């Protein structure tokens, strides 16, 4: 049994098949990339899997539990966490507050109406550790609205780390980040727990080929290939649909 399994997932918007009979499975420790041209249905797939859109057909399973009809929140509790293609953070709060809140949420203490997280040593220690791994310590108490975009992307990963999921869906974690800073994102991903299953959507093929053990290619809402990076690069159908000159 896979840790995370999507079976025959389908979704139509009007007459358009945006996700067509897609099946993907992940085991603990998997590092899988989901690639495809713009409009292939990658983000729709993430929204379907995380419960932000209801599928027309198909099943989503996490650790043997059918979560297809559960709310996005319930899926997080089941161990499925996502990041967003466009950064979604709390602009008036600091990176420290973001990470601490995610830790408190994981610990079931986020609704405590008394006490200050800064007076909770276990929360502070873990927050400091995560911010340290992401090199965000120097800006730990700055407003997020004032920090660099690359640092915001790192903080998105930090939130996922703090929630300690079983499965992590990363929607273009390096989108909008200068290529010189992509290495920081890669380093952060290298520090993710080894037993965590990661499915990453990404357009930067160098990044994808360095990161992924397996690459799934989506075109027009359908999986057209599933294999190792080398197999993907050599496949004529994928080259035709997506990679183009990159494979040469």
């Amino acid at each position: 049994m896979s840790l995370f399994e999507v079976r025959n997932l389908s979704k139509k918007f009007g007459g358009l098949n945006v996700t067509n009979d897609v099946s993907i499975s992940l085991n603990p420790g998997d590092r899988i990339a989901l690639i495809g041209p713009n409009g292939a249905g990658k983000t729709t797939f993430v929204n379907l899997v995380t419960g932000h859109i209801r599928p027309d057909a198909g099943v989503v399973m996490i650790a043997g539990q059918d979560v297809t009809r559960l709310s996005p929140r319930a899926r997080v509790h089941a161990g499925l966490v996502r990041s967003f293609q466009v950064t979604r953070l709390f602009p008036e709060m600091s990176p420290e507050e973001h990470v601490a809140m995610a830790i408190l949420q994981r610990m079931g203490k986020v609704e405590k109406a008394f006490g200050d997280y800064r007076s909770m040593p276990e929360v502070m220690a873990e927050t400091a550790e995560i911010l340290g791994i992401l090199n965000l310590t120097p800006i730990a108490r700055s407003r997020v609205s004032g920090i660099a975009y690359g640092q915001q992307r790192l903080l998105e990963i930090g939130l996922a780390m703090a929630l300690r999921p079983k499965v992590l869906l990363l929607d273009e974690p390096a989108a909008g980040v200068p290529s010189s800073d992509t290495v920081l994102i890669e380093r952060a991903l290298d520090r993710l727990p080894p037993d965590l299953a990661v499915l990453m959507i990404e357009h930067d093929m160098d990044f994808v080929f360095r990161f992924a053990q397996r690459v799934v290619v989506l075109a027009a809402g359908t999986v057209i290939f599933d294999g190792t990076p080398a197999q993907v690069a050599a496949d004529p159908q994928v080259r035709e649909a997506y990679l183009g000159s990159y494979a040469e």
Partner: protein
Amino acid sequence: MSNDAKTMTIWQRGLRSDLIACLLIGLIAVICFYAMPSGLSLLTRIIAIMLLVLSIDLVTGYGGVATLGHAALFGAGAYAAGIAAAKFGITDPLLMLLIGTIAGAIAGFLSSLVILRGHGLSQLVLSIAVIMLAREAANKFSTWTGGSDGLSGIAPSPLLGMWRFDLWGKTSYWLAVILLLVVFLILRQIVRSPFGMLVKAIRQDPIRVSAMGAPVYWTLVKMYVISGAVAGLGGALSAVATKVVGLDALSFELSAEAVVMLVLGGTANLFGAMIGTTVFIWFEHLVSSVNPFHWLTIVGVLLVTVVLFAPRGLTGIADQLRDKFGKGGAK
């Protein structure tokens, strides 16, 4: 210094700043008591409305919920305390305050179930519908509420059996000051707590909060209940102090004015709510006595000036100065 010792210092620092703020409020209260002996009724009213504005700050300033119907919770507290005294003979002022607080919390819970279903403009319309329904209900059930004549016959017994509610309003005033200090200390704890942080996060991005697995809707419902309790306490205080409850306690005008006071002082800031209320009512009182014909125009000019030149309110000016000359960073 060990981590434990360091974090304890942070906690102590927070408590110390709250106690200093309480001392400051207490000092101002003492000065006002001696400086304005004939204005104690006005000061008590300011504190009652301050509790309403603080309660709006919880849901609007911190939680981002648009409401123009919050006086429904204030009125629920006022009528509950008044009916308890006038119809059931419950005249102990502390018991009346407790009844008002509970009534406000219940009204907060019920109205949140309606208001939080909407977003933006629809939320605002729902909140207006709530205050209109509440007012109409109070008008219709005149046997209990006195209808448009108001609910009279409220005669609170001496506070703790010792202090009578005198004509000059001394007992009401000190009761109001103590209630304000207690509420302020509790709310400071709440807004600094993980729950308070979660509410602030919901205002900024509810989808992100949901993606972290935290509850959005029920968190706001809880904040609404807390807010209702504070507004209800304000209403009950008003009933105890004035010994009458009228339909104006359930008016759209009071709701809207309270929001204006909050914007004037600065949202998501407990001091802002208190300063905004004081400045607005004091200014309104002053201008209306100086110029009874054009005072509304002058109040309007003040508001336009503040909104245009200090959109974050009076406390926002202080924050800007602190960011400019002091150390920056997240609040």
